[in-house]
């Protein structure tokens, strides 16, 4: 595919995820006004930080009167999963110049990662897959800014919009990303363990339970995958040498 085809396919493929992100952006805009942000500060946070769940949690913490150090620590913990996205995509962007890598990293979100990883995993050899990345990421960025603006306007016009439960949009989006990924038994086990640990560690401060849950899920997934591999190897050896253990 040509550069522009890749770019437009990126814009197109991320659209379903934007449907989920828009209500989330709207509620962020609405809540930020409620937390005492000026219109420019709310726009500034979406434009400069561009990390939905971290922005959302930061607003909640600021409303609760927590200090800046705690907000920054929480931002770090909540966004740590992006290091893993960054690591997962690194083999595909390592040939690009930093003029590409810097903006692509800035625009790396859960939503962008979901569609971009899918594109890089597809079999066709295209030298322009980073244009797909750019299209998906830019579309997400622009939509997030527009949703924030809509939320600011909405929050100023409609009372109690915060109590509508627009945050469910995040749940539906993350379910739509995660469930189709659970194709193997280790993947399902990984999700179940992560869920259980997240519930058990709910009381831990600063979303530390989220990190504990993620680590537990990853360890269990890798362990089960390696166990299945060892079993398959033993099985293959037996098939190859059926008489080794005595006929």
């Amino acid at each position, binding site marked *: 595919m040509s550069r522009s085809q890749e770019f437009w396919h990126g814009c197109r493929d991320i659209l*379903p*995820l934007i*449907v*989920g992100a828009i*209500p989330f952006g709207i509620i962020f805009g609405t809540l930020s006004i409620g937390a005492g942000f000026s219109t420019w500060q709310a726009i500034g946070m979406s434009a*400069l930080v*561009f*990390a939905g769940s971290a922005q959302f949690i*930061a607003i909640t913490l*600021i409303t609760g009167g927590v200090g*800046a150090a705690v*907000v*920054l620590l929480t*931002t770090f913990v909540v*966004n740590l*999963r992006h*290091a*893993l*996205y*960054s690591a997962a995509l*690194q083999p595909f962007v390592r040939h690009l110049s930093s003029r590409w*890598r*810097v903006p*692509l*990293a800035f625009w*790396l979100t859960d939503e962008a990662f*979901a569609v971009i990883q899918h594109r890089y995993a597809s079999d066709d050899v295209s030298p322009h897959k980073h244009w797909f990345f750019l299209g998906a990421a830019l579309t997400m960025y622009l939509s997030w800014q527009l949703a924030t603006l809509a939320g600011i306007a909405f929050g100023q016009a409609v009372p*109690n919009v915060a109590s509508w*439960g627009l945050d*469910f*949009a*995040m*749940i*539906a*989006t993350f*379910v*739509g*990303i*995660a*469930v*189709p*990924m659970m194709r193997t038994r280790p*993947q399902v086990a990984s*999700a*179940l*363990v*992560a*869920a259980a*640990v*997240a*519930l058990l560690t709910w009381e831990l401060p600063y979303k530390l339970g*989220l990190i504990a*849950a*993620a680590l*537990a*899920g*990853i360890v269990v*997934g*890798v362990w089960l995958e*390696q166990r299945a591999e060892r079993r398959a190897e033993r099985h293959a050896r037996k098939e190859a040498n059926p008489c080794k253990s005595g006929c």
Partner: protein
Amino acid sequence: MQIWLLILGMLAITFMIRYSFFAWPNLRFPRLVEQGLHYVPVAVLTAIVVPAMLMPEGEWALEWDNAYLLAGLLAIFIAAISRNLLATIGGGLLSFFLLRWAFGQLPL
């Protein structure tokens, strides 16, 4: 002013995390790390979603009128059957707001 400093701090932290591995293009991983990465999105997203469904207000809510739980389960069902993102988001949101409306939880 303090809010602007906070925003810049969040920008710095978030960008450093996202750029971390892109910054060293020649860094390679042992197989174990690569294997682990495959489980990251599923584990992290599940760890965000499940407590949000079972404890939408920060405490256990195993109740029949918990729309987060009911619509969340429906979304999981739709996602498992269709493997389609738009259907999951659309179906999930629609059922969520219908349930909230039916339970009288919308401030209308």
